[in-house]
């Protein structure tokens, strides 16, 4: 198991918070809450070691130059593929957007 941290420039915090997914095999749990204005923080606890670069690339593709909301994202990952990670994150963003 590894614990990783990431930061990206962001806009204003969202109002709501949400939880999607579950720490089941091949899945992950994503908790999204309002963060500090200007910064998107992501903390990942993952069962797969040595994948920091993969997470970095995945997040960079999603957030770089996008000015996302200033979220505090907490991820508990149980071996999800990048596709599942992206799906869960998008699901979470959509739910935040609806609040």
């Amino acid at each position, binding site marked *: 198991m590894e614990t990783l941290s990431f930061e990206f420039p962001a806009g204003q915090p969202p109002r709501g918070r949400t939880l999607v997914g*579950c720490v*089941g095999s091949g*899945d992950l749990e994503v*908790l999204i809450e309002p963060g500090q204005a200007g910064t998107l923080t992501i903390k990942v606890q993952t069962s797969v070691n040595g994948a920091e670069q993969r997470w970095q690339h995945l997040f960079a593709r999603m957030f770089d130059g996008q000015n996302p909301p200033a979220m505090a994202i907490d991820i508990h990952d149980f071996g999800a593929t990048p596709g599942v990670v992206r799906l869960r994150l998008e699901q979470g963003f959509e739910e935040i957007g609806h609040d």
Partner: protein
Amino acid sequence: MTDSAAHLDKHSFVELGARQRAKALLDAGSFRELLDPFQRVMSPWLSRQGVVPQADDGVVIAKGSIAGLPVVIAAIEGAFQGGSLGEVGGAKMAGALELAAEDNRNGIPTRAVLLLETGGVRLQEANLGLAAIADIHAAIVDLRQYQPVVGVVAGSVGCFGGMSIAAGLCSYLLVTREARLGLNGPQVIEQEAGLEEYDSRDRPFIWSLTGGEQRFASGLADSFVADDVAQIQQQVSQFLQKGLPEHQRSRQAELFLQRLARLDAEPQIEPATVRDLYRGERS
């Protein structure tokens, strides 16, 4: 309505996660979660063993109402660590039942619904899981003096280990065709007793002995319903409104000892034997 329309109209309960199941059973708008995942009361034991924790430790506690009656639901998330109970998840369930019993002593008729998808004790927290399960047993027996405790084993994990004992303590037990209920998991029995005794890979055999349909047909469950949100909700609601059962299954020692005395325990057992032995004089 045509068959296919009826099929499309159904909503699977089994496919729902623990939180969604609790929401689906409670009266609309009444769901209020206690110790929600954002409070991050997580297992103090998993991370230090290199196992990723879950924010709610796999147990959802929600208060609300069903048919207007005050209810607390404890729902186990079967997808996280096989629905196993550790210290935190176990204490959430035990503590909720203890507070429900206390409510009743203070004149508030809180009932409980337990959504059981669990392999039993979480082995990484072994003795604390076992102790929590003993607390859960104690609390069910306490609360059950006042108001019904309804157990639901919907599937797909089933209900095993110490939590199958909890299921056996409930005032009413509801199962679906997707449910399995047994003390020992198939693999453990095969390991301990051998392939001859229990072939854990023979799925039809396992289901014929421990599946929901067989448990209901043998009188070891009170209701057998389809995997459908509306039907399960309706049945749970009926049990809650019915009050305490006339006969508590776990209090019929004399009856079950008589039945077992009639059994020829020499030959290996068949599912039909159990149904005949137990169903004959179902009260």
